[in-house]
């Protein structure tokens, strides 16, 4: 996570960690401690306020009630002495401006005195039906305090006191006012009702402490609002029992309500306390808005927030500036390396600082110039290689594992009749449609192999004969699977065919006169009796030379057949031991003439093979003639035969001049002749071994040679032993009843 951030972000985060976080922590601690202090102070203040307000209200109320009780105990009043009571009551009413009215009635409810607005009212009535009269009828003997009424627009309170006759009490110990009211109803002579205006009292209680935003209100025992700074609200006596502090009061109506954070009747957050009024069951509730209480700490919190924001902005700016300063050289390094990676090797990275980054930039510049040199070297090499590749006569193609051409040289492109760039990326088989022996043919580039004489028809409709060398490339990093070399042999082949045609024509032309010479010599030799011995010998020599000439021409024609694959064998069952023994006999004369010991070491008969009799006899004759030819006087030629593992191996060994290593390589190719040797014999065309090899191979055999220069040679060839099944197979296509000799064939079949 941290690693993937860019330097700018990292620097910013680091700055924040060391500057902003401590600031934040200090601010929070400061604000919180101030908050706590303010809370404690407010709680204390509310405790004092609630207690003082409540007590003051209680005192005022008690004073009023006691004054009413005291008045009611006046004898004249108890006795309902009309005029005296009027005077005394008027005086009493006028002493207290809070008294709105006073009514005095007897125990039947008949009003005796009524004072309104400090005047004796003449309007007398009866109180029997009023709530106040209950004091008399229920003999509660207690001061009754009525509900607060706002009937006149101002809050008014009715205090009802029963008038009790002292005379009948008979208990002088009771002096207190409390005791006085606890008397029996029979002593009640009447009642006094005093109406108080509470405006002043309310005012002094509800006004709250000067300089504070606190306020107070009063609820009755049922939790209904009876006094509020806004008298209009109190008028309708709204039910506040669900308001936090009121509910608390209703839970324990006699206990002092310690300050708590709760809801005001206006649904604002306040710190509120209450003081219960014992006599009436009311409670004075004081409150102070939280907003006011915590105004200083909120202000400081605001201030701290502003400071924090400013610090954050400052931190961002500083870190940006710092990181820009830090990253500028790095960015210029990045930009420089990007240009280099895009191939602009002439670009020099400009970093002026001498710090690590400056050093790094310098190293980069060094590296780039080295790279440039190396690349230029590679380019030169590549150009050289291209020149070489394109000047090679062979078509060279590299293919990938899908056989697509990755690279082709000029010769390959010429063969395809296109530009090298046009065949790049194309499928090899699509560019070169090949065939072999008139069958469609495909090379397998996945393996190293040589394909000879593959025909390819170029876009110009010319048939090319090509040798293809597929060379598998192991694990090439560029995905080259194989290098295919194509050697166009068409011209060589055409030349070869022309050569063969020429040889064939020449041979044919030579044969006609030779036939005549041979024929006439034959005719002459039929008349030996007419000739001298010397003449006879001369003619025989001429005949021998002619036969040699015939053999030469016939070999030339055989080469042509081999080249065209037309040298056909006619297989028969043959006793090879007998054939070889007889061949030894045929060469005895020549060997003796050259003083060479020719011997045979092997079975005399009963070694059976399948062979074309004439062709295979030519092979052994050729080898024996060669050995004699290349062996000096007094040398030896040994022919031997071994039968092993279903094959017959025939050796022709001599102690002649031997063959050089170079000669060994070319021995079995046509027209090759080992240098030296006596200048006679039939193997002089350089075709004997070439034809012998072909013949042995057509017999499914092998021919080989071991030789050391100056020590002699050992030619050997193997032939499969006679095998009936194999023989059937080989001869199944042959016509039976065939007579074959050198020079002629006849079929003795019935037509």
């Amino acid at each position, binding site marked *: 996570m941290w690693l993937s951030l860019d330097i700018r972000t990292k620097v910013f985060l680091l700055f924040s960690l060391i500057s902003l976080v401590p600031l934040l922590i200090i601010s929070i601690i400061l604000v919180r401690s101030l908050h706590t202090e303010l809370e404690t102070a407010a709680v204390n203040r509310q405790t004092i306020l609630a207690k003082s307000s409540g007590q003051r209200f209680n005192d005022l109320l008690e004073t009023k009630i006691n004054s009413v009780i005291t008045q009611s105990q006046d004898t004249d009043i108890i006795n309902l002495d009309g005029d005296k009571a009027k005077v005394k009551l008027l005086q009493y009413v006028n002493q207290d401006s809070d008294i709105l009215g006073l009514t005095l009635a007897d125990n039947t409810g008949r009003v005796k005195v009524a004072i309104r607005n400090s005047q004796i009212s003449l309007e007398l009535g009866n109180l029997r039906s009023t709530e106040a009269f209950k004091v008399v009828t229920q003999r509660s003997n207690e001061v009754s305090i009525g509900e607060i009424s706002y009937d006149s627009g101002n809050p008014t309170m009715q205090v009802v006191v029963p008038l009790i006759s002292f005379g009948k009490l008979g208990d002088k110990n009771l002096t207190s006012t409390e005791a006085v009211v606890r008397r029996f109803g029979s002593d009640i002579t009447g009642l006094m009702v005093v109406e108080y205006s509470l405006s002043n009292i309310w005012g002094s209680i509800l006004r709250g402490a000067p300089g504070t935003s606190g306020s107070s209100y009063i609820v009755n025992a049922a939790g209904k609002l009876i006094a509020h700074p806004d008298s209009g609200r109190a008028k309708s006596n709204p039910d506040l029992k669900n308001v936090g502090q009121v509910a608390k009061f209703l839970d324990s109506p006699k206990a002092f309500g310690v300050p708590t954070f709760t809801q005001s009747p206006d649904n604002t957050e306040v710190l509120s306390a209450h003081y219960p009024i014992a006599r009436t069951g009311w409670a004075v509730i004081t409150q102070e808005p939280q907003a006011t209480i915590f105004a200083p700490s909120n202000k400081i919190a605001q201030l701290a927030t502003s400071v924090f924001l400013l610090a954050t902005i400052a931190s961002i700016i500083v870190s940006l500036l710092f990181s820009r300063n830090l990253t500028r050289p790095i960015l210029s390094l990045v930009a420089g390396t990007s240009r280099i990676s895009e191939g602009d090797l002439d670009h020099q990275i400009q970093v002026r600082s001498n710090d690590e980054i400056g050093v790094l930039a310098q190293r980069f510049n060094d590296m780039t110039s080295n790279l440039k040199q190396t690349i230029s070297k590679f380019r030169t090499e590549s150009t050289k290689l291209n020149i070489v590749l394109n000047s090679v006569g062979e078509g060279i193609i590299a293919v990938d594992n899908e056989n697509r051409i990755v690279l082709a040289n000029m010769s390959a492109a010429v063969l395809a009749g296109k530009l090298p760039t046009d065949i790049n990326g194309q499928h090899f088989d699509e560019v070169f449609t090949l065939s072999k022996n008139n069958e469609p043919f495909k090379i397998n580039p996945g393996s190293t192999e040589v394909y000879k004489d593959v025909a390819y028809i170029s876009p110009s409709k010319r048939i090319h004969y090509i040798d293809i060398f597929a060379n598998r490339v192991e694990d090439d990093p560029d995905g080259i699977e194989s290098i295919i070399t194509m050697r166009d042999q068409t011209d060589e082949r055409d030349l070869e065919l022309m050569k063969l045609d020429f040889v*064939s024509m020449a*041979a*044919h032309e030579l*044969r*006609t006169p*030779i*036939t*005549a010479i*041979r*024929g*006439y010599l*034959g*005719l002459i030799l*039929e008349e030996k009796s007419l000739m001298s011995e010397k003449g006879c010998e001369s003619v025989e020599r001429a005949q021998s030379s002619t036969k040699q000439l*015939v053999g030469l*021409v*016939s070999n030339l*024609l*055989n080469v*042509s*057949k081999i080249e065209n694959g*037309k040298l*056909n064998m006619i297989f028969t069952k043959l006793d090879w031991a007998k054939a070889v023994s007889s061949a030894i006999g045929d060469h005895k004369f020549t060997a003796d003439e050259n003083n060479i010991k020719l011997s045979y070491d092997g079975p005399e008969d009963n070694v059976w093979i399948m062979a074309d009799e004439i062709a295979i006899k030519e092979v052994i004759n050729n080898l024996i003639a060669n050995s004699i030819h290349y062996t000096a006087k007094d040398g030896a030629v040994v022919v031997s035969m071994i039968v092993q593992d279903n094959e017959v191996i025939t050796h022709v060994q001599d102690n002649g001049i031997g063959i050089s290593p170079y000669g060994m390589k070319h021995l079995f190719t046509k027209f090759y002749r080992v240098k030296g040797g006596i200048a006679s014999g039939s193997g002089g065309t350089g075709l004997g071994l070439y034809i012998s090899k072909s013949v042995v191979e057509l017999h499914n055999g092998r021919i080989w040679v071991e030789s050391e220069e100056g020590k002699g040679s050992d030619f050997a060839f193997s032939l499969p032993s006679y095998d009936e099944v194999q023989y059937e197979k080989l001869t199944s296509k042959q*016509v039976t009843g065939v*007579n074959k*000799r*050198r*020079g*002629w*064939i*006849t*079929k*003795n*079949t019935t*037509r």
Partner: protein
Amino acid sequence: MAGLPKILLVEDNVQIADIYTQVLSGKGYPLKVVDTVYKLLELVPEYKPDIIFLDIMLPGDKSGLDALKILRNDPKYGTAKTRIVMLTNFGLNEEIEKLWEKYADGYVIKAEIDPHELFDIINSFDFEKTAPVE
């Protein structure tokens, strides 16, 4: 067939014709020699040879191979069963090989044989009555 087989030699080379004539006549074989396909086809119906030695390279627009086909395929010559041996100095080519194998009874490379081998060739055929040779 009584006596020696009747031979018809078709050969345009005068010397070779001369040699073969000397050899065969010397042994008493009835022999006629012609040098073109036309003369051959003219002679065959009346001469009725037992063996025809037929050169391939002949002057004119028909070769020995053409003659071979005609002799085998046209019944009017009555040569369906006549032994026909091709004479040539060519190496075997595909066409020649196919044709001689199909139609002819033998094949001779003239340069490769001595004249008296003609008798071996004649004797290799199983005539009802073969003349004693040599």
